[in-house]
């Protein structure tokens, strides 16, 4: 089951620099929350969907990524329609769908390595004034990229295992093993990161050495 975020390819979106894609995503995120007209939001969602399709990811891969999000959106839509009104629910649905599809288009077409470099460059000014450590930030981002699909996969495994034993879907019964397993995996991954000599030595321009802070 392929649930990882990036799909290799050579489409225009793939060739666009990571910084440009994130810039657009960021601007679109703000724009979408300022706009409220359903037609405009619908158009935005359609454009976002077209961008996703332009990445030429296999349909199976798209379905695996969109199914959990779709379920969540459907629940949100129903709740909003019930608690507020249909108009608000439609606007919310289109807005979130547009945003999620845009984010998907970016992550589908951006190599994790490029994403990391972009974040490193973005945080370099902060590093220079000593506020952040770019290596840590980039590792953090890549770990998120790594764990998100795995959490999805584990969620499905646990649900299937519970269904096989005749258990009804129960959020607590799902979440507890999910959290435990994810923490255990995170613990092991932290060891693996240590074992491979993280963090890298500071470059000559950098500040203090962070020799043993990974242990």
């Amino acid at each position: 089951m392929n649930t990882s975020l990036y799909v290799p390819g050579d489409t225009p979106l793939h060739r666009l620099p990571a910084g440009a894609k994130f810039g657009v995503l960021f601007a679109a995120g703000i724009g979408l929350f300022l706009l409220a007209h359903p037609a405009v939001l619908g158009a935005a969602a359609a454009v976002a969907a077209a961008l996703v399709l332009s990445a030429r990811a296999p349909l199976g891969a798209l379905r695996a990524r969109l199914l959990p999000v779709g379920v969540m959106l459907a629940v949100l839509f129903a709740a909003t329609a019930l608690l507020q009104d249909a108009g608000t629910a439609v606007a919310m649905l289109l807005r979130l769908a547009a945003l999620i599809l845009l984010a998907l288009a970016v992550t589908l077409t951006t190599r994790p390595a490029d994403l990391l470099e972009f974040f490193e460059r973005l945080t370099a000014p902060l590093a220079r004034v000593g506020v952040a450590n770019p290596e840590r930030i980039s590792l953090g981002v890549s770990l998120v990229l790594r764990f998100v699909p795995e959490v999805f996969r584990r969620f499905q495994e646990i649900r299937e295992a519970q269904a096989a034993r005749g258990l009804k879907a129960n959020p607590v019964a799902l979440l507890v093993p999910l959290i435990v397993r994810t923490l255990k995996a995170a613990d092991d991954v932290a060891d693996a990161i240590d074992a491979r000599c993280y963090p890298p030595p500071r470059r000559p321009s950098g500040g203090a050495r962070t020799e043993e802070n990974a242990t």
Partner: protein
Amino acid sequence: MTAPAGPAPGAAPGERPSAAEAPAPVIELHGVSVGYDGRTVLSGLDLRLAERRIGVIGQNGSGKSTLARLLNGLVVPDEGRVLVDGRDTRTDGRRVRSEVGFVFQNPDNQIVFPIVAEDMAFGLKNLGLPKKEIPGRVAEALESFGIGHLAERHSHLLSGGEKQLVALASVMVMRPRTVVFDEPTTLLDLRNRNRIRDAVDAMAPAAVVVTHDLELVSGYDRVLVVHEGGIAFDGAPGEAVAWYREHCS
């Protein structure tokens, strides 16, 4: 594989022509005790490890993984010291880990980055290798295990055997002098188990291999049996396995 130095025997895929054929580092444990949450797991260990192929066997929960983790400072002793070529794992952990690589049982948790080549590059970046040298080293290491074609693949979508080879390559690319393995074949089918066995047998660095696969260690120079908080037997593989079968089954 008993030769103290020189190229590894056989032309198995793990061979690394570029590896400096340095002798195995000497790993010493002096009065080492360690436990978790106040419960002692290993106590009063004194060991000197310098052979090129060392096996570690023992029952579930006997402390094999804990012993393995002591060797590169992933676990530091509560009492006593662990020295790798004289360097204390407590104060010089990073340096020790650059010489003593570690391959975990579950490659899923060992592989950090989503794309194989990136994961391989991670260790090299941590060693401070110049950026332009990294792709060459990565390609060379993958080729040496016959998995060059996996470079751009998603690490988490590989088969179990491929993942374990990638995990091994990602450690070997750092050119460690010793590699510690914690049950490297437990999750593998027979064919992949044999691939890993051959790769371990053929690789240039020394190896300490924790395993329940008694046949794996049959050609090793030395086998330790971990039992009841200590090393209950230490000797040739045949005798160690016989002792283990007699006392622990």
